[in-house]
């Protein structure tokens, strides 16, 4: 099973590639809505990408109140 840090790194890489934001501009505690310039619909798109990448299913209500990459990674990690 990957470590939490590896999961976080992969999420940042995926988000950077999918939304075409430079990887250097993203850090773990960033608000991903602002850092990626996305709305809730695009967040669901990111969720789909993450679910497919990590082969997990993450109910979207678990994203309630989640705004940073580190917490998001924790949610994914809990499903691995």
């Amino acid at each position, binding site marked *: 099973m990957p470590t939490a840090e590896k999961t976080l790194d992969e999420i940042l890489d995926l988000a950077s590639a999918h939304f075409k934001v430079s990887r250097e501009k993203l850090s773990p505690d960033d608000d991903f809505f602002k850092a990626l310039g996305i*709305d*809730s*619909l695009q*967040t*669901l*798109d990111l*969720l*789909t990408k993450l*679910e*497919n990448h990590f082969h997990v*299913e993450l*109910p*979207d*209500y678990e*994203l*309630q109140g989640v705004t940073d990459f580190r917490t998001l990674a924790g949610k994914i990690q809990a499903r691995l």
Partner: protein
Amino acid sequence: MTTPHLGQTMSWEFKEGVVELRLHRTPCNEIGSKSLDELEAFSRYLQSLDSSAHAVLIYSDLKCGFCAGADLRELYQRSQAMATSDAAKGVREFLERIHSALNIIDASPLTTIAAVNGVVFGGGFELALACDLIVADKTARFAFPELRLGLIPGFGGIPRLKRDISNAVVRDLLLTGRSFNATKAQQIGLASQVVAEGEVLRAARATAAQIAKFDRGTSATAKQFIKPIPHEELRREIDIFCELFSRPAVQAGLKKFVESKDAQPYLP
């Protein structure tokens, strides 16, 4: 080939035995009064087709998704502008009209295929469920978020979903209001195929071409045999929806959605 019909929210074209309905109302094919008018026109057109047609393919031209559901902004604005009793009457009339159109699609002797991508929420999910087959792009995400608004799906979603998948999964989706991806949709038997992003129309057309090989009368008979239309439950769903719509929680839920600063507030 007949002349394509170009509408404001959707357009259709009949070509080589396949009717293709293209949804293109920005931002995400929300179903409002204009969409309903055009969906009714489409359903009438379907009924007029002769034996040269064998399949219907419904897809979206918009990257955001197949359809995000009912136009909640229009629903809220109209219900605010009229007396409660008139709003209730208007909602029932809308539901009866859309049920009629979707029942025609559901019962069509032609094989119907929903080629879905992105958001397939609420009324959009219900439109897909009226079809015989769902082909999903990897970006597709399905949900019945109506409980978030104090409502249940009102366009026939519950009876049609019960027809296709287990009650346990129906309860999960309905009672949590959560969305699920195309992989899950295929695992539970909802999506017959999952394809790479951008490939769904090609895959759906290939499926339609396969269907064209079979005798249309036999296909229509087989479909009628294996796919019952749950008329009584569909009517009951309209009654329950209208009863719930009259509650204050619904107006509060609609208001929250409409006033959200998020352009498309789709997270629960």
